[in-house]
């Protein structure tokens, strides 16, 4: 596993424009790595399982178990999957570069949220600050 900061730096590097699918896979994988860090920091072994065909979604579900505030990045993880899917389905589409650029911003948000949360655990508590009810009802 690369250090968290290296993932952030990698997301800043230029994307391979001639191979959009490789770039999309790279960003999807970066998202998985970020979630792996979260899990490792909580003494959990990152799952190799898939959810809806994607490991990132299984990792997110694993990371949110017992910590509802982690759900604040649920849609971000799903948006990464969405962007990966449209790039994979239409690699030659006129909007592919725009989609890749957006996917990078989405991956970056996941990186910022999780790395920020590893510094200050409360990040995301605002939205999911009904933590007590969720803990009682999960």
């Amino acid at each position: 596993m690369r250090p968290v900061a290296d993932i952030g730096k990698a997301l800043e590097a230029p994307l391979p424009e001639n191979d959009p699918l490789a770039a999309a896979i790279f960003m999807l994988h970066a998202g998985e790595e970020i979630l792996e860090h979260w899990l490792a920091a909580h003494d959990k072994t990152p799952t190799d399982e898939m959810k809806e065909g994607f490991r990132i979604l299984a990792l997110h579900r694993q990371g949110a178990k017992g910590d509802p505030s982690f759900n604040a990045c649920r849609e971000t993880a799903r948006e990464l999957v969405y962007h990966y899917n449209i790039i994979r389905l239409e690699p030659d589409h006129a909007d592919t570069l725009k989609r890749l650029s957006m996917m990078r911003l989405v991956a970056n948000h996941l990186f910022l949220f999780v790395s920020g949360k590893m510094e200050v655990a409360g990040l995301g508590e605002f939205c999911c600050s009904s933590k007590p009810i969720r803990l009682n009802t999960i």
Partner: protein
Amino acid sequence: MPERKEKYKKVAYYHGCALEGSGQPYNTSTRAIAKKLDLELVDIKNWNCCGAMEVKNVDPEIQTYLSSRVMSLAHNDMGQDVVMAPCNGCYHNLKKAEYDIANKEKSREVVEKISAKADHPKYEAGQVETIHALDWLKFGYGEDELKAKIKGGLKGLKVANYYGCMYTRPRHIFPEKDQGGDSDSTSQPHYMDDLLAIAGAENVDFPLKTACCGGAHTLSDSDTSTKLVLNILQAAEAAGADVIATECPTCHSGLEMHQIRALKRMSAETNVKVIYFTQLLGLALGLSARKVGIHENVSNSIPMLKAKKIA
């Protein structure tokens, strides 16, 4: 739908604390729209804090009581059965209190005990319906009726709709969402998109519409908040938006303040404007920029709105 139209025509208005301070333009524009559309907002007198995040993080049961008192005032003192809260934090907390009181014996006990001590009738689950300003306009006035009222509209304006976190999370406390039909979605909310599309705006695809703005850490960890906001602003610009439409005073002030901070601390300049959705709707209805409080925003959108002949 006609039932809701009748029900939402006159609502108890709970603006909460943010809309008296940094979120004043949201309050100004909500009231201006109500007047324009003949929708009656009845202010809740002697209201208190909803418990926000501060109280909730110390003792969630006290937050439940505080929010329950607001709903009790609306029901027992005012005879209202709908509370409209435009602030996402207030809306979220009232919905959470409703859920707690309906589902947790301990919450009911705490509410009963403190209400008795404070000498006011306790709130009981189901006595009022809490709605957001988005529900109020979409169903209380109606989309077709709104369309007929639009003057000039927002033609030529590209909008990224930003809902923030508290409008949709956690799903449990919003049983009316994700029900298909005309209900809103917790993963892909669209009510703001719907209303602004009616007003003539072009909504852009915006993948961070419910992403965290770092609002909870804007004071304790400003750099994290600035980076999260900057990413949201850059994503909106990459999506081609002229404006980020907001519906939460915490998100709104966070986006405005950290836009400036990102420029000063990181030399990262973004030019996308930040405007409350009620301000945009007000402009589309023919209200002046001043009437909807555009001049009260930190983000100066007047030149852009003038260039597009919207203000």
